[in-house]
């Protein structure tokens, strides 16, 4: 058993660490304050292959696999949650759907510009009536000749305002429901009939843009059906599975940042005659964060290994997302406490980290859903079927 990363992944991490410190960190406060997407960073990220980390080089990606992708999410997530959300939604779900179920022609036409960062991607699943209950979507895709006409809307879509290409789920046969009645499509946002709604005003990740996607008589050619007609739900659920491990890696980065910050402050802050690092209450908080970070790290990279070696990974990926989001929240909460009033200051990065962390327990499948996924998978192994 070898717990070392391969030399190419070590070298990749080093380069990304430098990129994160030099290009991402200096803008983190500004993009949160100004509520804007760091376009300059995304352009630089495209140049180093950071917008297509896991995808093979023949599709314009880095060819670094899931392990490389988790490393990237960890390194950038350590420095700015908004930026990693932009990148994660783009790679982990929008482009990933096309990579997993796209035809070769679709990959050449859509995956290549996404992986090379020429265009940004968004993943259109959620609707006002369909969050955790994704099967309740109502966006309709009606067959008309050799195209489909899409009508409906999606809500809370990351990268909505900046995407050039979207993977969208719509109902093709209302009588069949999720099994057989729902189809995935690739749409280009320049097409007639596509519109975005206003930007959402969020508690955190304010450097990431989230909005409604509105389809009004949007004509989609049948070549843009992603995967099989009627089996769109399968494509989308499979994509979300893959996205979970890397999301957990982003949370790992955030938790590591919280731990580092807490320790630096514990060293610098003097009260009662010595640094607060000498106080047991602080030591215990640091030890607790560190244990969880260590466990999370092992979980993330073992799951990345499962994915890279084509082994089953759904349960572990759900654990990455569930545990990662909760570890990150606990870590930043303790770090805030350790910083005292400074942790509450909007001019200091801990407060932003605290606001940014909260969403991880909700999006990409709420933690309640993750628990169901994990329990279903476990019980299935002893013959109990929970999921319908």
């Amino acid at each position, binding site marked *: 058993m070898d717990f070392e990363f391969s030399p190419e992944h070590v070298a990749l991490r080093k380069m990304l660490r430098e990129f994160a410190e030099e290009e991402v960190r*200096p803008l983190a406060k500004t993009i949160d304050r100004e509520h804007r997407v760091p376009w300059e960073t995304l352009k630089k990220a495209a140049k180093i292959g950071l917008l297509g980390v896991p995808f093979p080089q023949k599709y314009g990606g880095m060819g670094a696999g899931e392990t490389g992708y988790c490393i990237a999410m960890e390194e950038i997530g350590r420095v700015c949650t908004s930026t990693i959300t932009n990148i994660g939604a783009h790679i982990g779900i929008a482009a990933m759907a096309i990579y997993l179920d796209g035809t070769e022609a679709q990959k050449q036409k859509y995956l290549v510009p996404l992986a090379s960062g020429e265009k940004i991607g968004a993943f259109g699943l959620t609707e006002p009536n369909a969050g955790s209950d994704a099967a309740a979507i109502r966006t309709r895709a009606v067959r008309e000749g050799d195209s489909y006409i899409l009508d409906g809307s999606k809500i809370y879509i990351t990268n909505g305002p900046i995407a050039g290409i979207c993977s969208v789920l719509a109902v093709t046969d209302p009588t069949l429901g999720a099994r057989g009645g729902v189809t995935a499509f690739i749409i280009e946002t320049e097409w007639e009939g596509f519109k975005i709604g206003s930007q959402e005003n969020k508690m955190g990740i304010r450097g990431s843009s989230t909005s409604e996607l509105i389809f009004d008589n949007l004509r989609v050619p049948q070549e843009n059906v992603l995967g099989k007609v009627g089996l769109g739900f399968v494509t989308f659920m499979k994509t979300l599975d893959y996205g979970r491990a890397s999301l957990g890696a982003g949370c790992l980065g955030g938790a590591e940042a919280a731990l580092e910050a807490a320790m630096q*402050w514990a060293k*610098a*802050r*003097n009260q009662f005659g010595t640094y607060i690092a000498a106080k047991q209450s602080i030591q215990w908080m640091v030890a607790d964060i560190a244990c969880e970070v260590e466990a999370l790290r092992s979980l993330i990279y073992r799951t990345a290994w499962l994915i890279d070696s084509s082994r089953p990974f759904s349960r572990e990926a759900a654990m990455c997302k569930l545990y990662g989001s909760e570890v990150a929240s606990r870590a930043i909460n303790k770090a805030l406490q350790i910083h005292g009033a*400074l942790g509450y*200051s909007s*001019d*200091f990065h801990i407060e932003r980290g605290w606001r940014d962390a909260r969403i991880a327990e909700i999006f990409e499948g709420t933690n309640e859903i993750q628990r169901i996924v994990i329990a279903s998978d476990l019980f299935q192994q002893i013959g109990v079927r929970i999921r319908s």
Partner: protein
Amino acid sequence: MTFMDDMSMATEPRDIWVVAELGADGQASPLSLEIVGGARMMADGLGCYVHAVVMGTGLGDVAPQLIAAGADRVHVADDPALEHSDARCKVLGDLLAAQPPEVLLFSASRLAEDVAPRLAQRFNTGLLAHCTSLQMDEIERMLIGTHPVFNGEYYELAACPSARPAIATIEPNTFGPPYPDSYRIGETETVAMDLSGFESRVQVSGPVEYVPPEVPLRKAKRIVAAGRQAGDFESVKQLAEALGAHVAGAREAMDEGWIAEEQVVGATGETVQPDLYVAVGIRGDTYHAFGIRDAKFVVAIHPEKDAPLVKTADAALVGDPPKILTELIEALKS
């Protein structure tokens, strides 16, 4: 061509040679005099002579100064072509090939950066660069130099056991000021050279306008920061200019309208790691101190001797900041 370019030495290597340079005033530079003085002490320990070489134009007054500092013989090479590194290497190289030194010392100057390594390679010998301390082991007749590494994080000692001449370039304040003795006797010799038809392989023109890439505050090597008690922000800016430093401040300097938010140093601002941080009128609470915890050398200028930053600074000046700044800017000019 082999690398053992055999310098069939006319004689055994002997004596300590110093390449002396001129200051802006046309006199021997203080560093050159310091090195000649140091060479004198080494030569007395080894029982040999000190030679000084000076190259350039307008060298009239320099030889007596070098002799007073400790040189036994001064070699004067006077020619306008000697402004070029190629000419210096040729003249010095030929001179030293004919009279090979045991030790060859340079000021740690631009001239030395150009010439010393080339001579060291030509003579197949070692170079101890940027020495802040230099000793001659008199028993082994071996030169040992101490030089900074990793931008002065620590120092390494290096020796040149057998290659000759042992070459070293020397930083100021290594030997201490020389004792000029105007009664010392020494010889002055004109260096025979033929630079007619000399053409430098490098053509230099200028100075020219060039703006180097901007260095962000978090990477600045020198910072002058203002606080509430700074009094006069103009003199803070002038001090920054005199030091080639970035201007910054504690949060209150932004409240005073002196600096922008990006220039605030502290927990809620920027964390900096300069080699030199001069805090003018900053009391220095924990939150500001957090931003400078990695600064290498902190200077506090403040009216209160009990101010937190005065108590933790590497050096502090207590008094009226505008007045101290005026004196400091003046002291830096000299």
